[in-house]
């Protein structure tokens, strides 16, 4: 998905039967967005429109039917000539009235009736399933005759074919995540070391965005000391890492399961691999927390990490679009700077009271900025716009105008992010909820160590006092 491909080269995809001409170097979700299609799916129960949200293949919002195969993560799928893209849900048409009917007649519809009933004879079961599943909001089955296309390359019915090994063997240390903390851990690790990351290059979730800022002629980065020092720290770690030819680096790979205390399952595109370890260093970073407010599922509401992936990895075009950035912290200023650099129109609402150090720099950049507001809710306004409403939070604050509602094309919500925790839990790690550290956090033990944002640190440095921070 390199950005700088030959300009002018176009591919054609079909969306709901309509042909769209699009650039070839991005994802299906981004192409649809740029063609005015924000709603990629409808939610199963309420039939609410959902748009790309995590841009990382985690959530349900971007699941679509591609070439008749359902449940394809379109936020991670590159466009290809001739693709047939359809919404897979039936929620938009059936959800509200049908679910009311089903609820009224619940005595006649036992739990799970849609997969229990009409299973015999086999020939008829498919006919019924194709009709019942949409009614219950779970979508249609894959199209007939397309089953073979869903298979990734791998052992066929005739037995394993020659291919890369799927068992990577044993490593002394496996480091999940090649952001600053993962790279710092790799620099100290000895023995056989494996480092993996779902990005193509080491540096972490912010590296691409920071590089983009550094290369931008406006030199916005120089005004924000914290961003500049983040980039310098990452580049230093990357330089250090480039001399370590004894560390194996797997790109485009993520840890997705721990079935056994000393091994994890990795996924790289469609292929799974397993690896054993003596020590696991969990540096998987944190996930966006959008927060609990009315309309928090409105298409166009994103977290900063999703924004970086959409703008930097996929090259989403937001030139001239009005973007509302709400919240505080490093990611707030970084989102603002990045959006400014790619030509978006900004409105900033600083809701994090403790975070005012960068406000003079923002004023210097002439970004419209409001303080003293609390987010009340966001709602969709037409298919492509949203409206955010605020109330004064009582602290006074300043606003360029007295408006308490703001229209925007996009809203980026920068809250305290939540540490990734699932695989360490599966490996037997002791995980507990620490809201002051953003969410579930792992208590480190002898062979499982969480570092960086995955341990609840703030981006750019530890949240806890230095003496409490464990070093691997």
């Amino acid at each position, binding site marked *: 998905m390199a950005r700088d491909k030959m300009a002018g080269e176009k591919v054609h995809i079909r969306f709901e039967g309509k042909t769209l001409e699009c650039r070839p170097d991005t994802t299906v979700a981004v192409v649809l967005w740029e063609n005015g299609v924000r709603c990629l799916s409808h939610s*199963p129960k309420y039939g609410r429109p959902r748009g790309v949200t995590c841009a990382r293949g*985690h*959530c*349900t919002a971007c699941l679509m039917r591609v070439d008749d195969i359902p449940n394809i993560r379109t936020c991670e799928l590159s466009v290809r000539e001739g693709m047939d893209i359809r919404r897979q849900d039936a929620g938009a048409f059936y959800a509200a009235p049908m679910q009311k009917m089903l609820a009224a007649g619940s005595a006649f519809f036992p739990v799970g009736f849609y997969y229990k009933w009409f299973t015999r004879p086999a020939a008829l079961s498919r006919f019924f399933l194709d009709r019942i599943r949409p009614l219950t909001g779970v979508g249609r089955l894959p199209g007939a005759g397309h089953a073979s296309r869903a298979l990734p390359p791998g052992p066929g019915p005739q037995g394993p074919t020659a291919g890369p090994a799927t068992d990577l063997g044993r490593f002394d240390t496996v480091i999940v995540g090649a952001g600053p903390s993962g790279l710092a851990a790799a620099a100290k690790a000895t023995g056989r070391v494996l480092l993996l990351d779902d990005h193509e290059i080491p540096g972490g979730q912010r590296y691409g965005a920071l590089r983009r800022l550094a290369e931008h002629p406006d030199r916005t980065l120089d005004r924000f000391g914290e961003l500049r020092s983040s980039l310098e720290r990452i580049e230093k770690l990357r330089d250090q890492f480039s001399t370590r030819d004894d560390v194996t680096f797997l790109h485009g790979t993520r840890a997705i399961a721990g079935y056994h205390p000393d091994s994890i399952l990795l996924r790289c595109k469609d292929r799974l691999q397993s690896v054993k370890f003596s020590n696991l260093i969990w540096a998987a970073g944190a996930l966006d927390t959008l927060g609990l407010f009315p309309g*928090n599922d409105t298409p166009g509401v994103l977290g900063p990490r999703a924004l970086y992936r959409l703008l930097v990895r996929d090259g989403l075009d937001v030139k001239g679009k009005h973007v509302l950035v709400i919240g505080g912290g490093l990611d707030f200023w970084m989102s603002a700077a990045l959006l400014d650099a790619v030509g978006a129109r900004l409105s900033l609402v600083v809701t994090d009271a403790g975070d005012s150090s960068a406000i003079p720099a923002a004023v210097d950049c002439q970004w419209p900025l409001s303080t003293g507001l609390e987010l009340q809710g966001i709602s969709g306004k037409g298919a492509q716009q949203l409206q955010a409403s605020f109330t004064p939070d009582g602290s006074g604050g300043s606003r360029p105008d007295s408006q308490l509602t703001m229209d925007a094309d996009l809203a980026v919500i920068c809250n305290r992010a939540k540490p990734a925790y699932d695989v360490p839990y599966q490996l037997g790690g002791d995980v507990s909820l620490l809201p002051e550290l953003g969410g579930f956090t792992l208590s480190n033990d002898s062979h499982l160590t969480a570092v960086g944002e995955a341990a609840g640190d703030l981006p750019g440095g530890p949240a806890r006092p230095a003496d409490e921070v464990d070093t691997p």
Partner: protein
Amino acid sequence: MSKAKIFLCRCEDVTLGEFREAYTEGFTELESLKRYTGVGTGFCQGKGCLSEAAGELAVLRNIPAGEVRLTNIRPPAEPLTFAQLAALEVPAASDDTEDKS
């Protein structure tokens, strides 16, 4: 706008109101709330909602957040196809794998 739904779990369409209602119906552990409301059982396997749900439960029960018992988060952390699993060559599973409960 105040009437708009607040979504706790987007995958399974569970609103904050439904979660609170389930609590008042007597489901006071995250595990039973998960089974009753569906929170955390969707495609993202709780990445989007479980810490929010646990935080809300701590408030409802008026207990420190650290005392909320987590649900059992079984592998894999994201949906896989049978084809992906079938293509994986792994040594036979050993017997000492135990399910945490």
